[in-house]
């Protein structure tokens, strides 16, 4: 039973107050995108064993969407941050690097 801190309202709540929204930072493909690009946008997922950037909504709370960096193996949360961004902020990347030396984005 996870606990997350909503960066929008500052509340630290339990999983039941939030709604998981899947992989973060997806680039929308609209009309004009190739079949491959569109398929990737809708279906291809990182699904890593380890650091995962994901979307959450504070559904039973302020109603805002935000992003979290979380480990899918230990479930530890490295940080939560605004949904209005196209990549994780530096302080979150630093927090990850601190806990997972040698980790690079994409897990490769």
């Amino acid at each position, binding site marked *: 039973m*996870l606990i997350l801190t909503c960066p929008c309202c500052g509340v630290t709540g339990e999983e*039941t107050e939030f709604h998981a929204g899947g992989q973060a930072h997806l680039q929308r493909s609209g009309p004009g995108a190739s079949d491959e690009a569109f398929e990737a946008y*809708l*279906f*291809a997922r*990182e*699904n*890593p064993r380890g650091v995962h950037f994901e979307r959450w909504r504070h559904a039973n709370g302020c109603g805002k969407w935000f992003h979290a960096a979380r480990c*899918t193996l230990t479930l530890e949360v490295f940080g939560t941050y605004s949904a209005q961004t196209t990549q994780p902020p530096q302080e979150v990347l630093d927090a990850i690097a601190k806990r997972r030396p040698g980790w690079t984005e994409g897990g490769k």
Partner: protein
Amino acid sequence: MRRYSAFAIAREAARHHQGWERAWRSPEPKKKYDIIIVGAGGHGLATAYYLGKNHGLTNIAVLEKGWLGGGNTGRNTTIIRSNYLQDPSAAIYEKARSLYETLSQDLNYNIMFSPRGVMMLAQTQHEIRGYQRTAYANALQGVATEFIGPQRVKELCPIIEIGGPRYPVLGALWQPRGGTARHDAVAWGYARACSDMGIDIIQQCEVTAIRSQGDKVQGVTTTKGSIDCDKLGIVVAGNSGVLADMAGFRLPLESVARQALVSEPIKPCMDVVVMANTVHGYMSQSDKGEMVIGGGTDGHNNYTQRGSFHHIEETVRALIETFPMISRLKMLRQWGGIVDVTGDRSPILSKTPLEGCFINGGWGTGGFKAIPGSGWAMAELMAKGASPLAAAFGLERFREGRFIDESVAAGVAH
């Protein structure tokens, strides 16, 4: 292989059971095999078994990073049914169900298939319509189901509260030949039969890399050394993404935790499997007497084999509403498994961008019931390059928008 029988037991009893032989060999891997299957769960072992039985291919290694049958095969709620709506699903699940009917005899290993009947309760007008539709579809698909009324439901399962204050039972989709089986025995039975055909099952052997030449698969690197093969089958529920990554492609799936629990054992009180989808819970009683209860899945990616407790809570309160008598039973044990869920919640049985490499995964929470059919189709796909049962489950469907969506109760009425 010495056959199992009552006579064999009597013979062994006379000498304190000192003479039983190993159920399966544990060989060291050879340098090369015609086919390597990664994953010695039910699906992987069944694939190897039908490659041998149906296609005469036995120069096969099944590699398992842990112990055989140690994944979802041994963590599910053992329900077997084929009352699916869409043709491709009904075809492969019904194939599986019909193979289960005779599997104990085929394998000379009692997997305890118990066709006690599976019912899916209709508790809203919307569900009545959905299940009636399924019954019509099943009739044309050759799946024996019927839509039954509340009284029949009560006769078949007396412990159900059909007049519940909130969701009275309005009927049910009934599959008399659905049921349950002993999950571990399915893996063990296939393993014993595979081993007997000369197929090598290599446990404690983790694949660390997939080797290829150009765009053709060449072999795998494992914790027990490097092994070559002409064809590679990836059958690793819960780790499909990781193996696909090694093979250089991505899959349209995510891994989430799904939970289940059992009560303490009580004397027999329920002789059917009941699924109540409006309130999200299903239950059956094992031969040991435990009430076996399926829980929900987390919304977030998770590889811990632990889920969040609120899913257990939701399931239990739903079932108490449907089966008031369980309120004073106790939860004995809860556990979690990792299931791979695809974009349309249907499995993937497919060739891959890497020539010679095939994948079987994404069964979500429905894998156990499919094992024999899945193995049958995967074997045909790997041996011949195509299988009617697998045809609709190819990866390309996600690009074409040709989904197999079983969760058809999308919206609710005005």
